[in-house]
């Protein structure tokens, strides 16, 4: 199996090392906060999907009342987490990783459709300044800026219905709010399914999962990068 962070065939790697010296090192790509954010968000999204589709009537393993409470509390926590993470992303400069780009997007898509079946190496080489491939950036950026806010804006309107509905109830607008919230929910579920599957496409099935737990990942670094990290951020490199 292939791994996007390391060259696959020995031949290819040799050719590269000949050009400029490449160091294979374990680098902490995901900081403690980032991992905390990822996993707490994951749990919250599962709780929200479970309780949300209970409220919607798709499933009913727990009473409606409990589902509403669960959904509302989890929603508030997730919105808070989203806001804090947005703050964190900008203050730490991590936002650069999420900016979507078309460059190489098609190659990555073709790799997942065709290339990886043929055992070809991943076309994208992740670097310290860009740890996500274009498809990831595209997906995460959409979720963080479109689907997420769609969900929680419509969710807040849903929750605080009586503050805006007025005396007549505004039942049509309420239905529209429900509609938007449902669209967001379905997109989010589809994303989560796709995301969980993509996670299994690493060197081993749990390679990426492990990276998101420990924070460390195999990277190809230049000599300069190794020197820099060892000197200034020794915790980030093993």
């Amino acid at each position: 199996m292939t791994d996007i962070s390391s060259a696959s065939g020995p031949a290819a790697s040799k050719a590269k090392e000949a050009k400029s010296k490449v160091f294979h090192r374990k680098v902490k790509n995901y900081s403690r906060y980032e991992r905390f954010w990822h996993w707490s968000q994951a749990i919250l999204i599962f709780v929200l999907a479970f309780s949300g589709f209970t409220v919607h009537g798709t499933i009913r393993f727990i009473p409606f009342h409990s589902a509403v409470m669960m959904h509302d509390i989890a929603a508030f926590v997730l919105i808070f987490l989203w806001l804090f993470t947005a703050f964190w992303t900008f203050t730490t400069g991590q936002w650069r990783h999420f900016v979507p780009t078309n460059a190489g997007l098609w190659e990555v898509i073709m790799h997942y459709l065709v290339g990886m079946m043929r055992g070809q190496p991943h076309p994208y080489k992740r670097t310290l300044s860009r740890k996500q491939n274009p498809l990831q950036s595209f997906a995460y950026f959409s979720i963080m800026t479109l689907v997420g806010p769609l969900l929680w804006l419509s969710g807040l309107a849903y929750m605080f219905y009586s503050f805006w509905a007025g005396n007549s109830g505004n039942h049509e607008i309420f239905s529209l709010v429900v509609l938007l919230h449902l669209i967001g929910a379905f997109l989010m579920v589809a994303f989560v399914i796709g995301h969980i599957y993509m996670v299994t496409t690493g060197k081993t099935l749990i390679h990426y999962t492990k990276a998101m737990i420990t924070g460390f990942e195999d990277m190809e670094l230049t000599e300069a990068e190794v020197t820099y990290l060892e000197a200034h951020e020794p915790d980030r490199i093993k």
Partner: protein
Amino acid sequence: MTDHAAFRGLGIAFRHLSAAILLTALASISGPVIGWSNANASPTAANKTESTNQSAEKQITGKKPGETADHSKFEILQQDFKSGPEVTKACLSCHTEAATQVHDSIHWKWEYDNEKTGQKLGKRYVINAFCGNVASNEARCTSCHAGYGWKDMRENPPSAPEAVDCLVCHADTQYYKKFPTKAGLPVTEPTMFGGKPFKVSNLIEAAQSVSLPQRDNCGSCHYYGGGGDGVKHGDIDSSLDNPSVDLDVHMAADGGNMACSACHSGSGHVWPGSRYDMDAKPQARDEEGKKLPSFAMRRMNETASCESCHTDAPHQGKTLEAIKLNNHTDTVACQTCHIPEFARGGVATKMLWDWSTAGKLKDGKPFAIKDDKGHPSYDSKKGDFIYEENVQPTYSWFNGKVNYVTDEDRLDTTQPVVLNALGGSAEDENARIWPFKLMHTKQPIDAENKKLVYMHLFGKDANAFWKNFDWAKAIQGGQDYMGKDYSGKFEFIETRMWWPITHMVAPANKAVQCDECHVKGGRLENIEGVYIPGRDDLPLISWLGYGLIILTILGVAIHTIFRFATRKQRNH
């Protein structure tokens, strides 16, 4: 901005801030303050058992407890009263305005002018889906008139001040009871009714026992509407004399111990709370019609609504749950959740009445049958019935406006005729979802004119149905009495009547649970025009959404198959 203006701005901001703080403080302290001190009102465990004793604690009424007069000490009440009107005369010697006030009330006139619909309603005019009409059956029906001797609906009630019946509302019911067929008079000598001795009233004791009306005073008529205990309303029957907290939190002696007039709190012998014209969504408003904050509702008077005390934000606390529950109050009436079932006190209510089968005789004699639960199921005088207990209400949008079918309306008999059509829909800003008892009846109409007819049931004459069991004569008799056109041909049609359910409020923990409405096929299955989470779906978006998820899973599956199939060639 000049310094002066800046200061003024600051001043305004400060005033707003302090007003906000004051309002918040007011709202929070007014929470637990519902009414007056319980010192005089709440009964001790000891006297709960002696509810028939005159000295038992009185129920909370619309007025603060604490009486300044003991009527048994009044000389004028210590005479040997021979009749009801004699007692009334004595009452009026002090309560000089009482008769005039009563003469102005619906309890006296049986007349209600509905300003919203322009209809003239009241027992004097309405034909309902129970006993039908008062007219031509007076002495029987007027046993529930708040007076003595009204024997003809075509005329106004007797005008003499002493024709007002003070005792039926104010006397201890153990001493006083109106006789069923004497146009409102009690009996003071042993008299039989229906083969059994009827209660002999003791007018002297009764006169000396007067107080503000207790539940059994109101109940002596209102429990028995439709001709028997619990027959008509479903949420008002004799079980409310001594209800458990589970049956009614407000009326239970160990609950609120409230009399009817605690909520139906009027003055001058007039009470709010008629079903003919209701306020389905009570709101406190200022003179310009702007909605006032919730707690202002407590200043509303003369309304018998939950909101009058509880406001439209009744669920207390700043919890998420309270907020979510309070979000319902613009759409759902309090009663919808807080009265899970009616007829819960052990008294069944009549849900179906088929007059068309009345008049069967066995060996030339009328007879009656009971169902396996002991409730009447047939009576030669009245036809077939279905009685039920613990009935889940029927729900409907309701804006308080009720449109009655009168004796002048031509009926469309292709479907059941609703005798009191409810106003309101999801779009109506004064409407909310209310619980009802939906009465099913079969009753006679003029087969050619297609109009409701008057049934002459009670009387000693040859036309009275309960004497000769002949519908043709009984209907002709009723129509003639009222001077109405009649083709001479009658038929029985299906009618419906909506009875708002608003009593028998259960404790909070027995309220309807979220799941019972927020589910497919739940209590509110037939409510239209509103999206109810858990009940409703948006079919298009759901199809697309579930489709998207299925496609995603399918994509993942196909990808997995290809990965699995190509794993060997990649490893080499």
